[in-house]
């Protein structure tokens, strides 16, 4: 038997199993309708859950992008001060962050697709549930219990199939969201633990900014000294080949220019 055929038969059997025949078949209609309403609110919650996860990932991407931006400017500043080692360190950390940002963006796209699917599933189910409610009232009003049986079976299994489909969509979305929640949690922890803060450095724990800051203090002092002495600004401390005028240092160049004027 073809896959399509087999799948339909099994799917139908499963969907119908959920609805036991009531003594009065018309009760089956009410029972089914009740289940439909429950499923509708479940799919609405599902949409909200996926949206929450998606927004969380968006927030993380923003945070990591800000941190990557900081590292970029730290690298630029370090280069201006002729500290290629620090610039290299900042860029290395930035590249690690970029990897994480790319992963998060992939997850974001997946969550968005899942959310769209679920929204469509909700719309389809909504339309069917409304149609079912109308049909339910017609069947109840027009037919005796015995006559109603066939019509009830048609309506109930028709909607049961839709419910099975929507139920699976919810399940898939829940599974995907759970996986991403776990990963998002790990990144939140990383941010909270300061491991990333250290890298990009808002706080005092940031080694790169600390060093850049102390260097810039030093070079301010040196510039000031040079100006006082009426000499050209010397190289930043710790640098080799200080004898040649600070060609690599834009700050001392500027200072020289001002002296000559």
């Amino acid at each position: 038997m073809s896959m399509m055929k087999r799948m339909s038969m099994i799917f139908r059997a499963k969907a119908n199993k959920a609805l036991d025949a009531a003594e009065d078949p018309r009760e089956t209609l009410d029972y089914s309708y009740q289940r439909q309403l429950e499923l509708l609110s479940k799919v609405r919650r599902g949409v909200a859950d996926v949206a929450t996860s998606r927004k969380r990932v968006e927030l993380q991407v923003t945070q990591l992008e800000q941190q990557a931006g900081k590292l970029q400017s730290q690298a630029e500043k370090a280069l201006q001060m002729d500290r290629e080692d620090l610039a290299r360190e900042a860029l290395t950390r930035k590249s690690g962050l970029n990897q994480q940002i790319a992963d998060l963006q992939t997850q974001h796209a997946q969550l968005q697709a899942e959310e769209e699917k679920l929204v469509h599933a909700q719309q389809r189910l909504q339309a069917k549930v409304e149609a079912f409610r109308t049909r339910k009232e017609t069947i109840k009003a027009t037919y005796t219990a015995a006559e109603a049986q066939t019509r009830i079976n048609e309506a109930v299994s028709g909607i049961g199939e839709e419910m099975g489909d929507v139920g699976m969509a919810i399940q898939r979305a829940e599974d995907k969201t759970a996986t991403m929640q776990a990963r998002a949690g790990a990144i939140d922890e990383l941010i909270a633990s300061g491991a990333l803060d250290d890298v990009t450095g808002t706080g005092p724990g940031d080694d790169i900014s600390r060093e850049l800051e102390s260097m810039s203090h030093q070079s301010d002092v040196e510039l000031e000294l040079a100006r006082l002495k009426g000499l050209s600004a010397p190289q930043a401390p710790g640098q080799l080949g200080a004898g040649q005028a600070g060609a690599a240092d834009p700050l001392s160049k500027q200072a020289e220019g001002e002296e000559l004027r």
Partner: protein
Amino acid sequence: MSKPEGGLIIRILGEGQFDVAEGALDHLNELDAAVEAAIEADDEATFRPALHALLEGVRKVGVQHQVDEIDESDLILPDGDASIAEVRELLADDGLIPG
């Protein structure tokens, strides 16, 4: 009930129902056989394109079934993202509608 005359309703899970003319079935059956073979061989590499070809075939020949009509489908097909394992699960005996 509004079954298309001489036609079928095919559901793609996660996507909805399509009305498909009877004449298109032979072609779809060929595509279906390819999917089935890939599942039997447990070959994910041929399974994915085969499943997509089958679903695309249905979308191409089918028109979307009226959304507010409650009709059972004649055939049901898995979601295009479904893995072989998930399709196997669909062909096994568990509950579908979550509590």
